[in-house]
């Protein structure tokens, strides 16, 4: 999560590895299989996994960027990328100060946060109707 801030808080950590990147990639591979077999989505909270400095960036660059990039503006921005692997999404929620609040990997055809919500559609419909009155 260090990418959100210019502060370098690391010391003597040049070559440290937790070895958590590879198992995570395997977990994603299994999740893709479950999606293909059963349509079962998966979500991994990156805050819950111990990472050495730089490992999260390594994971993100291994996943790469695919065809879709969406930016929300809802309680601060959110960045939603489809990675090089279709069906694997990287969802990063920021607050108004662009600090990362949470970060997830989602395995699904489209993260549900992208869809318009019925409540919001109803609200918008009412606003449009009021405007036309």
């Amino acid at each position: 999560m260090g990418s959100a801030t210019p502060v370098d808080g690391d010391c003597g950590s040049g070559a440290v590895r937790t070895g958590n990147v590879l198992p995570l990639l395997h977990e994603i591979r299994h999740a893709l299989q479950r999606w293909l077999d059963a349509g079962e989505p998966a979500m991994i909270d990156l805050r819950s996994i111990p990472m050495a400095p730089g490992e999260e960036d390594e994971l993100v660059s291994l996943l790469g960027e695919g065809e879709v990039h969406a930016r929300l503006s809802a309680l601060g921005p959110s960045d939603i990328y489809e990675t090089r692997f279709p069906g694997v999404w990287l969802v990063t929620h920021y607050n108004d100060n662009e600090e990362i609040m949470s970060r997830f990997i989602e395995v699904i055809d489209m993260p549900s946060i992208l869809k318009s919500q019925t409540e919001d559609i109803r609200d918008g419909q009412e606003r449009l109707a009021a405007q036309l009155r």
Partner: protein
Amino acid sequence: MAKHKSLLETLQHQGISRRSFLKFCASTASLMALPPAMIPAVASALEQARRPSVIWLSFQECTGCTESLTRSHSPTVEGLIFDAISLDYHHTLQAASGHAAEAARTAAMEENYGNYLVVVDGSIPTANPGYSTIAGISNRDMLLETATGAAAIISVGSCAAFGGIPHAKPNPTGAVAVSDLITDKPIINVSGCPPIPVVISGVLTHFLTFGTIPALDALGRPKAFFGQSIHDRCYRRPFYDKGLFAESFDDEGAKKGWCLYKLGCKGPTTFNACATAKWNSGTSFPIQSGHPCLGCSEPDFWDGGGFYKPLSTPTEDIAATLVYGAAAGAAAGVALGTLNHARKTRAQQAHAPVTVDDLEKGDGQ
């Protein structure tokens, strides 16, 4: 903001969309260290959540815990949570003082009797009540009086949870923890010196969201944050397992980021969320900055025999001892002195993996 609106109504009133609410729920679940599968449960609980009234008591303390909390909340997701709680009394933060402030406390107690949350930072002196008073009321009296109508008490920081630094030998003020004086209320210990900001707000959020007490370990700490040792989540662990240690703060090992065990790291006996939650918006934590863990979230960490003294003083070669230690996993660490050894053993036994059921359980210990 009306006191009895649900959180959802409050957010809607502020023009916050459903999509924003869902984003808020995802981040809240992450903040509470809940698995992402719990996000829908968090959403439906938050829709109905009411603003709880909170009375915050600061006793023998350094204000570091309040500093930690206020650093966490302003522009973040926790900020919304704090907009959603009704902080009726906090004598460090509130504008009123003296009798006016005490009147606010009494009013909040009467209005929400049986339902309000008491948050305490600082220990309570028992040797002489004069060591710490508020508006002429001793800390002990104020705690006992305020606790009577509380739904639960959250002890924020190692002082309120375990006595902390005031309780360090020779404990001149006779400082005790909240749990030494209150035995008939659920108490959640959020230890740390100071506690990690997201852990404080995560626990408050849990209460706000589910209206229950999270599952606790044997020392009364929420398992979601204190369920694993620093050592078990430390990114330097591969070096410990290989027996590669920094011997001083500027040797080759230190430069290569090797394990800090020999420099006194208390990670093996310390249960806290530093290694994953980190500090300063996820920037770093002490071990990542090259300093051993002091064990600040454990009872009597101040009297643990020296911050730079390794946990055990092995007679043989430390690397050989540690190969055995690594095999034994988390149980390898020895307790901070013999004082709290039994408590600690119980705590370690209680550190079973946390399930969703545990988190929803509201029965305290």
